[in-house]
């Protein structure tokens, strides 16, 4: 580049009238072929196998046959609707908490951090490089029954209120819904912060000045200018938090108890321990359908279809 701009280019012969370069008609297909084939065989085809497994009956010993036994779906739903409900509730609560906690940090990085910007950015991303299981186990120490956090919450009588609400039980935080939501929020917070930051960062700073010049208070500027302009980040952030959180079973297993089991826990144990494949496949299919319907509806409602 530098050489191009510094040295004057040698005089080239007058360009002949070249026909527009013909790109191979088949090139894009060759480029797409291996990757798309991979996704078709190992992502799309498994979905079909799963759908077929969910309407099979039989046993491990005698093998399974497709019998269009749709009752599996009904049984799965009536047996496990509390876990489904819990997944939606916990993931929803974690998503809202992520938005409340993540927005100020994304805003701070985008507008207020100055020369600390890169450092804070690194600190947001760096925990990714420690296995998330190790970090989730650290919450067992932080929320331990005799630890300072539970002690402080007890002294402030916060635990009385949360127990009354059913979020915690007695003097404990571990093995309660609060611990699971806390873990989910922690685990998926960076997925909220990064899209929020990237849409905040694109906002022209002069819009803030203009709002101020027109006598808007900072709160009004935020409500009328900044927040609406950051909507794409809010939408993709909430999706990136809610979807993985709703299928998660790690937090519910490590930080929760049998009373906090989510649908992911059920799918996992049906598949890997109880070996009831049709029920497991039906549950997983219901979860997938629910997520797809919700995502489509949400993206339509928020009018950011260019997100994809």
């Amino acid at each position: 580049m530098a050489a191009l701009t510094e040295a004057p280019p040698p005089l080239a012969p007058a360009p002949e009238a070249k026909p527009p370069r013909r790109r191979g008609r088949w090139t894009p297909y060759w480029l797409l072929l291996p990757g798309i084939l991979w996704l078709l065989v190992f992502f799309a085809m498994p979905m079909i196998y799963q759908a077929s497994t969910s309407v099979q009956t039989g046993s491990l010993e005698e093998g399974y046959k497709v019998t269009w036994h749709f009752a599996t779906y009904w049984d799965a739903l009536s047996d496990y609707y509390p876990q489904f409900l819990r997944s939606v509730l916990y993931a929803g609560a974690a998503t809202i908490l992520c938005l409340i906690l993540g927005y100020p940090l994304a805003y701070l990085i985008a507008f207020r951090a100055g020369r600390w910007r890169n450092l804070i950015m690194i600190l947001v991303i760096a925990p990714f490089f420690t296995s998330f299981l190790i970090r989730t186990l650290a919450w067992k120490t932080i929320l331990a029954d005799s630890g300072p956090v539970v002690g402080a919450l007890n002294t402030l009588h916060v635990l009385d209120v949360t127990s009354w609400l059913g979020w915690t039980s007695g003097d404990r935080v571990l093995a309660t819904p609060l611990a699971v939501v806390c873990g989910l929020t922690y685990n998926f917070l960076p997925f909220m912060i990064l899209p929020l930051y990237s849409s905040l960062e694109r906002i022209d700073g002069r819009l803030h000045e203009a709002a101020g010049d027109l006598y808007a208070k900072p709160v009004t500027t935020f409500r009328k200018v900044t927040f609406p302009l950051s909507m794409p980040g809010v939408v993709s952030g909430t999706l990136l938090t809610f979807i993985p959180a709703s299928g998660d079973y790690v937090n519910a297993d490590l930080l929760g108890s049998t009373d906090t089991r989510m649908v992911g826990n059920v799918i996992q144990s049906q598949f890997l321990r109880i070996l009831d494949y049709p029920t497991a496949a039906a549950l997983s299919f219901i979860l997938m359908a629910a997520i797809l319907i919700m995502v489509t509806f949400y993206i339509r409602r928020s009018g950011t279809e260019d997100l994809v």
Partner: protein
Amino acid sequence: MDTRQSRIFGTSVNWLRRHFVVIAGLVTLGYLLLPNVVVTVFSFNNPKGRFNYQWQEFSTDAWKDPCGVADMCGSLSVSLQIAFWATLGATVLGTMIAFALVRYRFRARGAVNSLIFLPMAMPEVVMAASLLTLFLNLGAQLGFWTILIAHIMFCLSFVVTAVKARVMSMDPRLEQAAQDLYAGPFQTFIRVTLPIAAPGIAAGALLAFALSFDDFIITNFNAGSTVTFPMFVWGSAQRGTPVQINVIGTAMFLVAVLLVLASMVVSNRRNRHKA
């Protein structure tokens, strides 16, 4: 309250109001980093029982003997191998798709786009369970290869997204210029296109490596009896957590931060040199 007190009160309320975002942001940052602090501190613990959840006394035993736990370093090496090959596979396939999407017109573009978007919009447990039904139906032997196949599958979309963003912002006139200067298509690609797309490809590869190395849910379903590092940690959460887990976690965090800082220093220096 006399006037002086109320003035002090007023200024501190004002100060809080002006710095509200900064304070709230730093609180969130603390929430994000607290577990890492705990992991680091507890890597110097000398726990009494099998579990390393309660502080007992300071000790550097685990740091002196990081591989002192049976099977842990073996699982670490399995994870590194899978992450390496998965990164390579996903980066090559993903970069090809990204170039096709940005540079060419072809049929079924919408279908291709949704096939790339869907794996990112699907809870991991669904992909994990359905992939397992495929492998069970085909009678595949679960192990290293099934894990690798799964990892390439879910990393692919992320690489495509990262590379696509970079290639889209590229000035197509640079390639035209190269061709006007009599570079062949291959030479243009190697000398012009690839260097410009490199940061996007590197970002995609880094993301793929991190995703693959840290993956637990999909691996847990499709691993058979192969044990990756996250699976070792999961198992130890049931049996007893050795301090060495924290040593590995801390070391990984430090290496990542140092690498990023080093690359920032290098790129800063290069920019200054250019200016």
